[in-house]
């Protein structure tokens, strides 16, 4: 089966190169392994046999098996980035970590900005992907997308990142059209004691975290942390300074308390402030008509406070109530926005009889925004408060207990733009044996409008017109904008072929309707800002539809005890069509050619003798033909030395194959892309 997969990948020449490299790397590693068999590593871990049994029973274990077990019954395309994956990765931020997930398209725009999507439709504001941090949505209701530059969860605090490809709307809610990325931080009890890290590097110039965790009495644990980093600027496509340096400082805390045997409470919060440089192309003057790219400094800040109460009603029933407040502001002079979000979320999980397992819940969210009107971007009205109500129910039915499970569920949601929407799904999982599992699902999900779809105006560019009248091309939101809808059929197969090799494969077919298009409007004269000019308007409309289909495969192969390999591959095609009324000749092609057909990755982890470990990862991304971005292969590596359990040193290199490369050049992105540079860093970590 593995050979088969490799052959499929090899239809692409560039991938063959990677595999060629890895064949060489593989043999080198194998000989290193053979040579190391005489030596004996792992002498530094404490001797657990000297700890008495009662104390052992109080130490928490990291259980891979348990996660895999839970995963093995999930009837969805789930990939979990574990703590081990994070430790072994050279990535210093969440976007770069996501590159390891097959089916996720990560394209870096400049030092601080990324375009990230699942199963196509990539862009700086990818709006069909829901991103959550500890249950708090970071999807902007104003610009319908995620500001990745402001999502600084220190990697040391992350327990795992669950990536669900495909619609997750029934449980997670609107905008989980093509996937959900859920970042889950460690419990306070898992971050006891102190931690200090310091990194220095060529691109990631300086960064680190200071963290301390302790206990309040015997039932509550806390942590407090402060972290920060500064990234160097990249060159622009012409090799000049891309003016895109990026820095953040952040502080935060988390408290986990067991109020009683049945009740646990979590309270957490953080506040951050940062700057990200960028080159913004915009209208410089209407008369004479001049467009240009100017350097700006995007400043952002925010804070949030979240609390969650879990209550165990009985062995078969559990409730949770989550409340949070989130405030974020940002602006670079060409725009200015602020959003306050308050969210309440209730869920109950209850078993009913032998065969039914219900989850149901309700949520309410209110978002209030304020915007600054600038010559480039304005919203009408400038400030708006929107509300979202939702409720969902899902029943997991044990058709054949331990073998066949059927999940039926729907979410009913009401938003201020499009009213009620229903997002149903049906999923079936069939466990053939301990080692083989098959699943299939059909679902429908919706991308609800944001302020940018309905109320925005962007003065995009200016052109010289007849009689000296300047023509101002402006993009307008459409107050009648509808939901974008997807219907998905997907199926997957997971197998543990041997104790050392497991494989997870998914195929999907998506059918989209009411997709966004950009339609021409009737030109009109405008006197302000002076001088008199003609506005060539373009409106958002829902006049496109289409299909995507694809395949995602990931595998884990423990070649020998000290060496594991994780290959992955994904394939995607997008076919979009104009509705009869549409006059948009470009969006379909831009979307079709804006996501790579082929992506492949290979990660390697080796435990070397003498407390060393060596990791390598290679990522191949196919070309983006609509953007003229050629295919590229990233190669990252790092070497870690951990002489004692409390101390480690890592040196890492990223993008080793080329001095610089381009990953994204999207249309309508007002941010100019930078070249992603080869870089290196060193990092020390100290626990006390």
């Amino acid at each position: 089966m593995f050979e088969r997969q490799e052959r499929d990948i090899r239809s692409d020449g560039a991938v063959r190169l990677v595999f060629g490299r890895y064949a060489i790397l593989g043999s080198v590693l194998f000989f290193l392994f053979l040579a190391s068999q005489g030596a004996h590593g792992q002498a530094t871990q404490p001797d657990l046999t000297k700890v008495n049994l009662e104390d052992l029973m109080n130490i928490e274990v990291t259980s891979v098996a348990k996660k895999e077990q839970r995963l093995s019954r999930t009837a969805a395309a789930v990939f979990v980035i574990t703590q081990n994956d994070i430790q072994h990765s050279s990535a210093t931020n969440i976007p770069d970590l996501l590159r390891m997930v097959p089916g996720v398209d990560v394209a870096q725009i400049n030092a601080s900005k990324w375009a990230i999507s699942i199963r196509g439709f990539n862009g700086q504001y990818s709006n069909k992907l829901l991103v959550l941090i500890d249950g708090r949505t970071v999807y902007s209701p104003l610009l319908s997308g995620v500001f990745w530059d402001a999502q600084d969860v220190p990697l040391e605090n992350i327990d795992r990142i669950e990536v669900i490809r495909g619609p997750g709307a029934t449980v997670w809610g609107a905008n989980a059209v093509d996937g959900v990325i859920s970042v889950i931080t460690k419990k306070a009890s898992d971050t006891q004691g102190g931690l200090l890290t310091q990194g220095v590097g060529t691109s990631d110039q300086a960064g680190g975290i200071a963290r301390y965790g302790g206990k309040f009495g015997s039932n509550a644990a806390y942590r407090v942390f402060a972290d920060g980093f500064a990234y160097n600027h990249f060159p622009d496509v012409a090799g000049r300074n891309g003016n895109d340096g990026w820095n953040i400082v952040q502080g935060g805390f988390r408290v986990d308390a067991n109020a009683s045997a049945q009740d646990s409470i979590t309270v957490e919060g953080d506040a951050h402030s940062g700057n990200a440089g960028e080159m913004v192309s915009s209208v410089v003057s209407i008369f004479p008509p001049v467009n240009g790219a100017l350097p700006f400094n995007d400043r952002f800040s925010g804070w949030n406070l979240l609390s969650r109460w879990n209550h165990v009603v009985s062995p078969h029933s559990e409730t949770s109530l989550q409340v949070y407040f989130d405030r974020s502001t940002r602006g670079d002079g060409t725009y200015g926005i602020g959003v306050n979000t308050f969210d309440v979320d209730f869920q109950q999980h209850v078993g009913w009889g032998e065969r039914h397992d219900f989850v149901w819940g309700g949520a309410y969210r209110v978002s209030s925004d304020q915007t600054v009107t600038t010559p480039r971007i304005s919203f009408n009205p400038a400030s708006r408060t929107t509300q979202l109500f939702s409720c969902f129910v899902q029943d997991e039915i044990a058709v054949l207990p331990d073998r066949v499970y059927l999940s039926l569920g729907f979410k009913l949601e009401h938003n201020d733009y499009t009213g009620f929407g229903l997002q149903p799904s049906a999923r079936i999982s069939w466990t053939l044996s301990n080692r083989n599992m098959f699943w299939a699902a059909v679902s429908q999900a919706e991308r609800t409008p944001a302020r940018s779809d309905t109320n925005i105006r962007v003065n995009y560019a200016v052109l010289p017109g007849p009689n000296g009248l300047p023509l101002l091309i402006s993009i307008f939101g459409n107050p009648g904008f509808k939901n974008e809808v997807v219907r998905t059929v997907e199926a997957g197969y997971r197998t543990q072929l041997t104790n050392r090799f497991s494989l997870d494969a998914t195929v999907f077919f998506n059918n989209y309707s009411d997709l966004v298009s950009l339609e021409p409007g009737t030109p009109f004269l405008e006197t302000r800002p002076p001088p008199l000019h003609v506005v060539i308007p373009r409106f958002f409309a829902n006049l496109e539809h289409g299909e995507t289909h694809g395949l995602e495969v990931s595998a884990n192969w423990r070649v020998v005890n000290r060496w594991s390999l994780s290959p992955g591959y994904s394939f995607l095609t997008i076919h979009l069509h104009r509705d009869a009324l549409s006059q948009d000749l470009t969006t379909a092609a831009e979307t079709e050619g804006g996501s790579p057909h082929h992506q492949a990755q290979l990660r390697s982890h080796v435990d070397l003798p003498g407390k060393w470990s060596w990791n390598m990862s290679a990522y191949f991304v196919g070309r983006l033909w609509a953007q003229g971005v050629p295919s590229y292969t990233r190669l990252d590596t790092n070497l870690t030395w951990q002489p004692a359990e409390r101390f480690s040193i890592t040196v890492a290199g990223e993008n080793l194959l080329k001095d610089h490369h381009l990953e994204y050049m999207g249309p309508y992105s007002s941010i100019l892309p930078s070249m992603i540079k080869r870089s290196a860093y060193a990092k020390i970590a100290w626990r006390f």
Partner: protein
Amino acid sequence: MIRKANSGLFAAMRANLLALWSVVLFAAVFHATGSGTVWAQSTVDEYRMKAAFLFHFAQLVEWPADTPADGGNSLFLCTLGEDPFRGELENTVEGKQIGSRTLRIRHLKSPQDTRGCHVLFISNSEDKRMAVLLANLRNAPVLTVGEADDFLGAGGMIRFCLEGNKVRFEINREAAESARLRISSQLLLLAKNVVGGNGGK
């Protein structure tokens, strides 16, 4: 103009960050060298922990005096089926002393090889033949340990389970007693659940 202000700010930021972390690291070095080894316990790999549990089981169980001792002064800890410990038994317990005996590890491929084992860990990979396997071992002085859901019901003696992220175990006292193994009261007290036998809690 903006660019200049921006890069100045970056320089200041970087300088501040570097200064902050240098101070903090300096303090950390002092703290660490001054206070000795105050090492906050982080989490441990599940099977490394279970290996340590197996060591304690071997310490807290008495085998009948007439148990054949093929290996002289060795106490054999065997695994049957696919080994989930992946080297942790060797790392954690191999060669450790229990009384006058030395712990030795064996990884068995076939159930015929269980002769001479004192402790037998039966992997979940043997799920299908678990009942037959345990029936054949009935009354033999082998402490059987497993993880399958119905391990105790099928006649196994100790079953590992997880409670949250912590390792727990259950004991089938009847199975142990019929094999003339004496499980210490300490182990019985720490068990999450004791089934069968007299005085089970």
